[in-house]
C-alpha cells in the first residue's frame, strides 16, 4: 500500500495516486538511494595521493594490477586506477574497489583509435572515478602516470585522459608511459600509436602529456631484468617494475626540474633504458650497470640524437657507501661523455630502498629522439606507413577522418623536425659541454632532498 502526499491510500504498483493524481514515491527507498550515492562518493574525500597510476586499455589495466600486487608496500601516497573496455559485457558503471585499485569499464571499446577516443571521452563515469582515486583539486605535488599500450583502441586515447586529469588538477604533472606496437604488428596498431603519440606530443594542447616515456613492445622483449625476489622479469614484470620505479622515484620537485630541462630543449618524448635488478656482485660498479642500460634500450634512439639524459637510480640502503651523490655523478659524467656526444643536460635522482639484497635499479630517460623512431623500427617502415596514410582509406572504420589524420601527421612531423634542428640547439651552437659545465648541470638528488643546483643558462 502506498500513501500519496495527500494521504490517499493506493495499491502497490501504481505510479500516480488514483485520487489526486500526484506521483507516488517510496520515500524511504529514495532517501536510502541518495544516502548510498553519498557513500559511493566517500572515497573522493581521501587525502590526495602523491602519485596516481592509471592503466588504460588491456595492457595498462593489467600493468596497474601487476604493479599494485607485485609491489605491495604502498602507502596512501599512491593510488591506482584501471580503465578498460567492457569486453565481458558488463553494463557500464564502475566496479567496486578491488584491493584499493579502482576499476572502471568503458561500455563500448574499440580496436581503432578514433572509436576508442570517443568511448573514453563520452564515458560519464571517468571523472567521478578519477575523483575517487584522489584527483580532486589544485595540487602541484601530484603526478599522474598513465600507462597504455597505444597500439590498442582504448590505449590510444591516453591523451583524452591527460586532458581529464588536467581538468581536475591543472597543476598535476602528467606522464604517459606508452608501449608502442612491435614491428610485426598490423597497420591499424601503428596508426593507433601514431595518432596517440601525435596528441601526446602536440604543442600547446591540453591533451599533450608533460612527458611521454615511449617503449616498443618488440624491444622490451629483449630487455633483461631481475625482480625483487631474484626471478627473471617477464615483459609485464619489467613494465610493472619500471612503473614502480617511476612512481616511487620521481618526487614532484625532481619531476618539475626534469620537465623544465626538457621544455627548455623542446623535448616531450624520452626513451627509457633499463637496468633492473642489477646485482653489484655481478656488475661490480655503477659504470657497468649504466653500460648495461643502453645495450638493449626499450625503444629505438640514436646516441647522436640524445640531448638530455635523466638518471633515476634506486639502491639498497646497505650500498649507500658505493653510491654517494658525487660518485654517481662522476660515473654518469663519464658515461654520458662517452656515449651521448650531443647531450645538453643531465640530471640524476638517487633514492634508497630498504631491501637487503645488493640489486640496483637504474633507468635512463633519454630525450632528443624523434616521435616516429619511437614507433617505427627504421626509415623504411615509416615510409611504408606514410604511403599507406596517403591512400584513400576508409577512415570512418578507424573513427577518424582525413583532416584528423592530416593533423596527426603534421603534429608528429612538427615534433620530429624540432628534434632534428631544435631551436635551442641553434642558440647554443657555441655552448660546448665540458666537465666543468656538466658539474653545473647535474642535479644531485639524495632521497627527498632537493638540490638548489640549477640548469645551465643558455648563453645569449
Amino acid at each position, binding site marked *: 500500500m502506498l500513501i500519496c502526499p*495527500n494521504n490517499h491510500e493506493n495499491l502497490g504498483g501504481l505510479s500516480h495516486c488514483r485520487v489526486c493524481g500526484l506521483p507516488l514515491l517510496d*520515500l524511504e527507498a529514495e532517501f536510502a538511494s541518495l544516502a548510498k*550515492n553519498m557513500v559511493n*562518493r566517500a572515497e573522493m574525500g581521501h587525502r590526495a595521493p602523491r602519485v596516481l597510476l592509471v592503466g588504460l586499455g588491456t595492457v595498462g589495466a593489467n600493468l596497474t594490477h601487476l604493479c599494485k600486487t607485485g609491489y605491495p608496500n604502498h602507502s596512501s601516497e599512491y593510488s591506482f586506477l584501471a580503465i578498460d573496455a567492457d569486453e565481458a559485457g558488463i553494463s557500464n558503471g564502475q566496479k567496486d574497489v578491488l584491493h584499493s585499485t579502482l576499476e572502471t569499464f568503458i561500455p563500448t571499446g574499440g580496436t581503432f583509435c578514433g572509436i576508442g577516443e570517443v568511448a573514453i571521452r563520452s564515458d560519464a563515469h571517468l*571523472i567521478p572515478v578519477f575523483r575517487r582515486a584522489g584527483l580532486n583539486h589544485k595540487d602541484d605535488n601530484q603526478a599522474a602516470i598513465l600507462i597504455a599500450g597505444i597500439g590498442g583502441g582504448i590505449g590510444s586515447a591516453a591523451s583524452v585522459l591527460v586532458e581529464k586529469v588536467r581538468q581536475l588538477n591543472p597543476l598535476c604533472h602528467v606522464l604517459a608511459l606508452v608501449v608502442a606496437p612491435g614491428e610485426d604488428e598490423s597497420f591499424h596498431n601503428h596508426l593507433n600509436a601514431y595518432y596517440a603519440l601525435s596528441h601526446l606530443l602536440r604543442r600547446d594542447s591540453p591533451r599533450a602529456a608533460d612527458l611521454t616515456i615511449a617503449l616498443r613492445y618488440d624491444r622490451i622483449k629483449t630487455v633483461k631484468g631481475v625482480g625483487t625476489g631474484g626471478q627473471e622479469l617477464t615483459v609485464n614484470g619489467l613494465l610493472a617494475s619500471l612503473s614502480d620505479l617511476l612512481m616511487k622515484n620521481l618526487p614532484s620537485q625532481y619531476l618539475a626540474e626534469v620537465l623544465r630541462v626538457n621544455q627548455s630543449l623542446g623535448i616531450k618524448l624520452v626513451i627509457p633504458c633499463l637496468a633492473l635488478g642489477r646485482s653489484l656482485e655481478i656488475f661490480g660498479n655503477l659504470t657497468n650497470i649504466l653500460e648495461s642500460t643502453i645495450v638493449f634500450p626499450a625503444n629505438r634512439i640514436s646516441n647522436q640524437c640524445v640531448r638530455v639524459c635523466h638518471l633515476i637510480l634506486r639502491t639498497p640502503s646497505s650500498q649507500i657507501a658505493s653510491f654517494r651523490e658525487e660518485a654517481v655523478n662522476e660515473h654518469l659524467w663519464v658515461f654520458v661523455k662517452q656515449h651521448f656526444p650531443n647531450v645538453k643536460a643531465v640530471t640524476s635522482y638517487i633514492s634508497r630502498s630498504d631491501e637487503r639484497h645488493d640489486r640496483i635499479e637504474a633507468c635512463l630517460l633519454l630525450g632528443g629522439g624523434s616521435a616516429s623512431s619511437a614507433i617505427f623500427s627504421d626509415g623504411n617502415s615509416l615510409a611504408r606507413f606514410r604511403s599507406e596514410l596517403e591512400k584513400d582509406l576508409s577512415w570512418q572504420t578507424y573513427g577518424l577522418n582525413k583532416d584528423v589524420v592530416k593533423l596527426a601527421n603534421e603534429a608528429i612531423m612538427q615534433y620530429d623536425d624540432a628534434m632534428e634542428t631544435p631551436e635551442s640547439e641553434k642558440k647554443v651552437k657555441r655552448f660546448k659541454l665540458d666537465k666543468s659545465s656538466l658539474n653545473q648541470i647535474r642535479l644531485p638528488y639524495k632521497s627527498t632532498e632537493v638540490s638548489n643546483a640549477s640548469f645551465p643558462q643558455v648563453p645569449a
Partner: protein
Amino acid sequence: MVNSVKRELARAKIRSWRDMRSGWLVVESDQIAIYRNKLIGGPQKLTQFNTDRLAGIELDEVKNSLRVIFHVPGEEPKDELFVLQGKTQTDTVISTLKDLLNELKARKKQEAEEAERLEKEYQEQLKLTRERFASEIWETSEILWLICKSDYAMVRAVIEANWDEARQQYSRIWQESDRLKQLSQIEITGALENLDGAVTSQNGQEIIQKAGDLIQQLSHRLLHYETNWPKWQNDQEMLAAVSPNYGHLSYFLLFSTVYFEMLLAAQIEDWASVNSTFPLIRSCSTILQSCFNLLFNGSLAATNSAIAKRNLTLLLDAARQIESAVGSVFQARPFKFETPSNQPKE
C-alpha cells in the same frame, strides 16, 4: 423561546377540523392544542403543534376557514384547516397566531445573526491558526532546504580539499539544525556529533559518509514523525487539510536533497548520477507544485536540456532559476485549505 412560561393566548371553538365537528382550539405560548368536546369528562386533548413550527396562516373568508401551516426543517410543510365558531373568535386566533409568527421570525433572525457572528469569529480564528501553522511549515521547509544546501556544499568543499569552506558549511548546518530543533523539535544532534569528529580531524572520507547519514537521520525523523508539535496538538483535526502540511515536509526534504545531489554531481562531472536524479526531481516538483504552490515554470525543461547536453554552464543557469523560484515561494509562503475531495485530479 421568548415566552418561557406556558400561558394561554387565545381560545376558539372549532366547528370543523379534519373529521371532528366540535372542539376547541387553544393557542398557548409554546403550542397550539386541539381539544374535542366529550359529553362525559369534559374536553379531551387530541393533539398539539409546536408554535416554533408555525410557518404561516391563510384565511379563506368565503368558506370562513383558517389554514395554519407548520414546517419542520428538513420536511415538507404541512397544513391544518380549521373552521372556527364566529368571526370574533376567528379574528382573535388569527391575531394571536400572527403575533406568534412575528415573534418567531424575529427570534430566528436573531439566532441566525448570532450563529453567523460566531461562525465568522471561528473562521477568523481558524484562518489565523492555519496561517501560523502554514508559516511554521514554511519555516521548517526553509531550514530543511538550507541544511541540505550546506550539507552538499560541505561535501563539495571536502572533495576539493577546501577545508575552510567545509568548516564554514558545517557551522551553518549546526546553526540551522539548532533553529530546527527550537521550531519543530526535530533533533539530529547525533548525526551532527558524528560529523563533528570527522570535520575536526579533517577526515574527508568520513565527512562525506556522515553527511549522507545526516540527511538519512533527518528523513527518518520526518517520515516517522519522531518529532512533536505541542503547539498544534489540539488543532490537528482543524489543520489536517492545510496545504503544505507536516506530511509534505518529507517531500520537501526529498526535493532539496535530490536537487543538491544533482548540483553536486554536475559540479564534480558525475553525469551518470546527474541523469539518475532528474526523474526524481521531476516527480518531486509535481508534488511541490501541488502542495507548496512552488512553480518551476521553464526551469525544469532547461535543466533537462542542460543535462542532455552535459553542459554545466547551462545547468547552473537552470539551477539558479530553480533556486530563485524556491526563494520566491519562501518569501510568499502561500498555503491553501481544501478537503481531499476538492483537490484537483491531474
